[in-house]
């Protein structure tokens, strides 16, 4: 019993990071109507920089640098997305393709610069003991930051004019343009914000379960799974989706096979894709 609770608490620890990755994915989906497959790669890049700069200079500087680099990477794809938008109007798949390319690009950068060994930082050498369950203090950090970001993203999306404009342009781009909303600038800012969130998530993953150069896709998919479990249009719901996936994955890793447990986010995604959402579209996909 304690074992299950312990696994679950570790699952929440991991799930928070997945939930954090759900934010950039939903945010970008809302802003661009497509999926950025490189989100996990920004996180890995951020984590890698945090690790190695942190190791040679200072952990705090490392963390800041890591987040900054993630933002730069995301901004790069943001500019590419704007360039593509001019040439290939409205085809969401082109950005998916480009982001896939970028994800592999970043993977290769991390591999070349930092090598293929996994890396992790675990500054907490002690555990809390809560009602007989061992929990790493890292859990506290993750949950605290997670909740902080949930609130921050909520406020940003629903209580600022920026958020209102982003949601408006997601709904109907032409109307937004006509209303004077700078759609392109908004789109770019969404990428910057996504990079920030991904970078923070990456640093947290670094301190939680660690990562290696190839973790990017896994993180992207975990974030995507978290985001779609309760619907891609609700970034906050993605947070809870992430918790769900994190717990299921860690519990399966504990009781079954560790390697196969990483199939869990994939199964979640596949289930959602298969079962579909009833929804706002008619049988032939015609919008109202």
């Amino acid at each position: 019993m304690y074992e299950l609770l312990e696994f679950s608490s570790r699952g929440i620890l991991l799930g928070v990071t997945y939930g954090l990755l759900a934010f950039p994915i939903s945010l970008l989906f809302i802003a661009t109507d497509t999926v950025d497959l490189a989100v996990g790669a920004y996180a890995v890049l951020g984590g890698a920089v945090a690790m190695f700069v942190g190791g040679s200079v200072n952990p705090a500087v490392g963390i800041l640098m890591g987040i900054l680099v993630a933002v730069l990477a995301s901004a790069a794809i943001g500019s590419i997305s704007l360039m593509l938008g001019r040439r290939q109007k409205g085809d969401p798949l082109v950005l998916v393709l480009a982001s896939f390319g970028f994800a592999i690009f970043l993977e290769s950068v991390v591999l070349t610069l930092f090598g293929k060994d996994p890396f992790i930082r675990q500054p907490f050498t002690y555990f809390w003991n809560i009602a007989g369950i061992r929990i790493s203090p890292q859990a506290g950090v993750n949950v605290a930051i997670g909740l902080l970001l949930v609130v921050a993203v909520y406020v940003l999306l629903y209580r600022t004019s920026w958020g209102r404009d982003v949601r408006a342009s997601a709904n109907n781009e032409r109307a937004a343009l006509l209303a004077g909303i700078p759609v392109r600038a908004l789109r770019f800012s969404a990428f910057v914000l996504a990079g920030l969130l991904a970078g923070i998530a990456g640093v947290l993953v670094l301190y939680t379960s660690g990562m290696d150069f190839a973790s990017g896709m896994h993180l992207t998919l975990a974030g995507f799974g978290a985001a779609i479990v309760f619907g891609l249009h609700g970034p906050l719901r993605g947070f809870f989706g992430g918790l769900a996936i994190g717990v299921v994955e860690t519990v399966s890793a504990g009781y079954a096979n560790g390697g196969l447990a990483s199939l869990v986010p994939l199964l979640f995604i596949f289930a959602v894709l298969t079962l579909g959402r009833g929804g706002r579209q008619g049988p032939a996909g015609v919008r109202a």
Partner: protein
Amino acid sequence: MNSLLTRYRSVLVLIAGLAVITLLIRDNTVWLDTSVVIAIYSLIALSVGISYGQAGILSVAQAAFASVGAYATAIVTARYDLPAALGLLLALLLPPLIAYPLARVVTRLNALSLAIATLVFGQAFDIILREGGDFTGGYIGLSGIPPLPYASGLLQFHFVAWAAVLIIAVLLSNLIDSPFGRATNTLRADTLRAVADGVNVPHVRSAILAFSASVAGLGGWLYAHHIAYIGPDSLGPSVSLSVLLMAVVGGAQTVLGPIIGAALLTLLFKFIPSQEVQGMFYGGALIAVLVLTPNGLMGLRTVFGKRAKSPSVKAERPTTKVAAGAATVRGAS
């Protein structure tokens, strides 16, 4: 006769080119080896041409389908000593058996869901391979795959590999010039238009993905028997990316495009210093191509005056001046 020439123009060009090249390289083992590798990648790139070029399905797992074919024949020949022909059968049949239901079962009609589903499959297959223990060889992979009994020499393998490419080129040429092919092209440009033509969109998408998976599987079969080793990293996600790049660079909607892309990139790849840097090259190149020449090299033909035979990858919504014209006319009446 005239329509035959038009339909099989690419095949004839390919045969002519191959004849010349074979004559030139027939005694050179290094170039023969390169030629075989190009043929193998041509097949997997053609599978991208079929799914993405013809139907607009973005599959980021074409190398995974090839890998299914490669592993199938490796397990069957290296572990169980069965004939390579059985491996071929499995390599042709298993990937479509995965692809067709995968596409059908992803219920929504939009292409994005299908792209994600292929990503999920690719990643899942990678994990399964690595956790497959002795059956798949795990992280280490399987070696000792026997060569093909009727093609033990490099020149013979060169013929076999390119014969496979030619067969697929013929089949693809047939498909493009058929009602099914036309329906596929309509579907790529505009799903609703296809429905309004009476096209069963889910079935067409799934059939095309299944066909492309089978072609990739064929490439995987050749790969396994040529390299004699297969591991989880041999035909992994970065190969899925590189074949996407090959198809896009060459021109995904044509028959020759993916083959040209495969040749070009395989030759250039020889100059990349190390394995680690591959991803940077492929990723960067893909983005550059997408931004600069989305229709690839074959698409440049239209720049030089010849009208494009097949529709270019355009928007899902009709955004042309014609649509704009409609609005003004209605306003006027």
